[in-house]
């Protein structure tokens, strides 16, 4: 029991420390920041967002986003800034555009193909 209380205290400390690194004046900005960092890929890690990563580059990118949020830049502006420099790859969920259209349509296309292949078999019964 004592151990549990101690653990909880430590966790509280950690949470507190985390939020102090990037202080915001409004809750909206804080939410935007945490949402954005979850959508940006840590380009030097394996499939981690920069919110989850402690890599130095992820820290720097978080810092950059923090300042851009403070400067009241819109989500789209921030994402554009990063995509221009690191490519579409940096977004964990790629946006739909000419380059990524195939990526988005492929699953639907594959499903369609499977349906077309299976359809005659089901009709025969």
């Amino acid at each position, binding site marked *: 029991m004592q151990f549990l209380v101690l653990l909880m205290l430590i966790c509280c400390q950690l949470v507190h420390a985390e939020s102090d690194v990037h202080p915001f004046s409004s809750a909206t900005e804080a939410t935007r920041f945490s949402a954005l960092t979850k959508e940006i890929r840590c380009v030097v890690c394996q499939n981690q967002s920069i919110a989850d990563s402690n890599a130095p*580059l992820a820290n720097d990118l978080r810092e*950059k986003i923090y300042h851009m949020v403070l400067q009241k830049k819109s989500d789209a502006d921030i994402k554009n800034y990063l995509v*221009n*420099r*690191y490519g579409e790859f940096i977004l964990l969920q790629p946006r739909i555009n000419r380059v990524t259209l195939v990526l988005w349509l492929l699953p639907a296309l*594959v499903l369609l*193909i499977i349906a077309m*292949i299976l359809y*005659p078999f089901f009709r025969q019964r």
Partner: protein
Amino acid sequence: MKQNLKFIPFIFLFALIVLLGWELYFSKHGELPSALAGKQVPAFVLPNLFQGQPSLSEQDLRGRMVLLNIWATWCYACGNEHDMLMKIKNMYHVPIYGIVYKDDAQEVIRWLNEKGNPYALIGNDKNGDVAIDLGVYGTPETYVIDAQGKIIYRHIGAITQTVWDQVLYPLLQKSR
């Protein structure tokens, strides 16, 4: 008509297999083209590593083909490429501009005194801000920049003689 329809899924499947096969065997692996390739070097200003000397900005890179090398003394591969950079400066006479990435200035100056300084100008990017502006993944990275200040190519990792002979030098020759 119905007979023809039957083949459509297989045509799709065939196209898909061709696409995947092409990706697997013919696309270049491990190459990480800069998202900035073909674009102007973003505007930046960095203080010179040596106090009192002129700062480094994107304006300094204009006028001729140059290399922009992002490096640090704590980066192992940067130590490996240092001899090659000296050679590029002394034998091939291509100006190299340096950006020191998140390093201690004193440490860098000691390193350059000991091993020689291949750089025409060195900017000190203490907190890595300009590196993010350039879309840097890690050190060392080298950008080939043309006379108009446009990024032509980015090489990730140390420059070896092979990389120089096969990739960078031909690029510099072609665009001259």
